[in-house]
């Protein structure tokens, strides 16, 4: 699978991505992460209204072989979650940067984006 990260968003070192549109930030996990995890069979989504703190755990993703925490790339309140992942968690494997998005949050502090990597920086992090 291609692990080229799209350059329209930012990345955490824990392999989450965030794409900001105004005050709304869409978050998800990268293809590098889902490729590492293998077949994803379950995701524990955050609750709407929950307050996420940057780099703190906000959910869990389970593959056939392992359990992995999800870490929030930015702080904010959860406005929407991707309910499709409840019935089709495999979207995280097949389309992690698109239909496999996890949640939308109201961005609490836009300056937090500066603590994240750009696509080139993330590509370098995950190279080799």
């Amino acid at each position, binding site marked *: 699978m291609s692990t080229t990260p799209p350059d329209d968003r930012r990345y955490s070192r824990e392999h989450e991505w965030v794409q900001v549109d105004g005050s709304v930030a869409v978050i998800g996990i990268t293809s590098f992460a889902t490729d590492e995890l*293998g*077949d994803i*069979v*379950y995701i*524990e989504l955050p609750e709407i209204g929950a307050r996420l703190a940057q780099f703190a755990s906000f959910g*869990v993703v*389970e*593959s*056939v*072989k392992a*359990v992995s925490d999800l870490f929030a790339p930015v702080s904010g309140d959860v406005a929407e979650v991707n309910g499709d992942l409840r019935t089709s968690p495999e979207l995280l494997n097949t389309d992690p940067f698109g239909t496999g998005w996890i949640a939308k949050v109201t961005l609490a502090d836009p300056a937090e984006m500066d603590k994240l990597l750009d696509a080139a920086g993330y590509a370098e992090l*995950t190279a*080799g």
Partner: protein
Amino acid sequence: MTEAPATLRHTPLHASHLALSARMVPYAGYEMPVQYTSILDEHRTVRGAVGVFDLSHMGELHLSGPEALAFARYAVVSDPGLLEPGQAQYSMLCAPDGGIIDDVIVYRVDDGYLMVCNAANHDAVLAQLESLSAHGDFDVHLADRSDETALIAPQGPRAAELLGRLTDLDLSELGNYRSVPGRVAGTECLVARTGYTGEDGFELFCAARRAQRLWDALISTGADLGLRPCGLGSRDTLRLEAGMPLYGNELDRSVNPYEANLGRVVKLEKGEFVGRAALAAVQQTGPRRRLVGLMMRDEAIARHGYPVLVDGAESGVVTSGTLSPTLGERIAMAYLPAADAAVGAEVEVVVRDRPHPAEQVKLPFYRRPKPDPA
């Protein structure tokens, strides 16, 4: 990514695994493929067609000499004296306190007994056997053939069809837990009808230097049967569905065979053997805990090490758990106090600090369909 330590060993098929873009992980001192494409794909391949595993990391210890049988009977808890030529049995080496050092398969072969052990326990098994042969005054020759032996395992309902294309052996004559020497794809092998997947299948022991040729022949010959190379990931989900214990999960030095539901393997009546007194005592009193099967009642997946609650109190622990690819159910094995082990009884598994309901069920979770008599 973490760099694999330089000391990891390679099987003779390592280059093939890399060429197939397998995800390689450290396992028992070896760098081994955990998956080639996807654990689910590989799992379904073994249930529905045929998958082939590289198990060359496993240990092969050969016993020969006038007292090979007496020695084997003393070393393991089963009775290799019951083996007919060509037959194999599942067994265990136990310590004097009854704790399991390893689970093994003992094959009666032409020139003695072949004991196949887990790679992670190879050194412990070898040390135990060497110590017994040194102190027990047995006229036995113990040969460690692990490095010179490769092990390739085609497993699945079409494994016999695959192998039939590559050998003159009459496989219909080769029963379960039987082995026979023969040529497969021109390679001298010990062809055994054994495995660890819950499916029909074979384990092919051959010289390490011949492994590549055998592997390539299996892969190319099996293409139209739906064959895929399979890694340790699907091996784990397959054996768990089949209710088979894994050393390090269900079995270890703190567990005795009766606790692991393997009391049927122990032959107390055969006479003295390592661990006999301790095991006889357990057999008398009954084990204090038992391995049980669990089926989760909600979406939670139990994993190794998660606590199990009985009547709200922590009393057991999960040894293995996953979402069963074949059943679509969340399955697990766990140790519970013997008094609490009962098929149909409700328990809870603590998943990420929250109790989730589960029911005790009969093992195995999956049993392969009987072959069509037609």
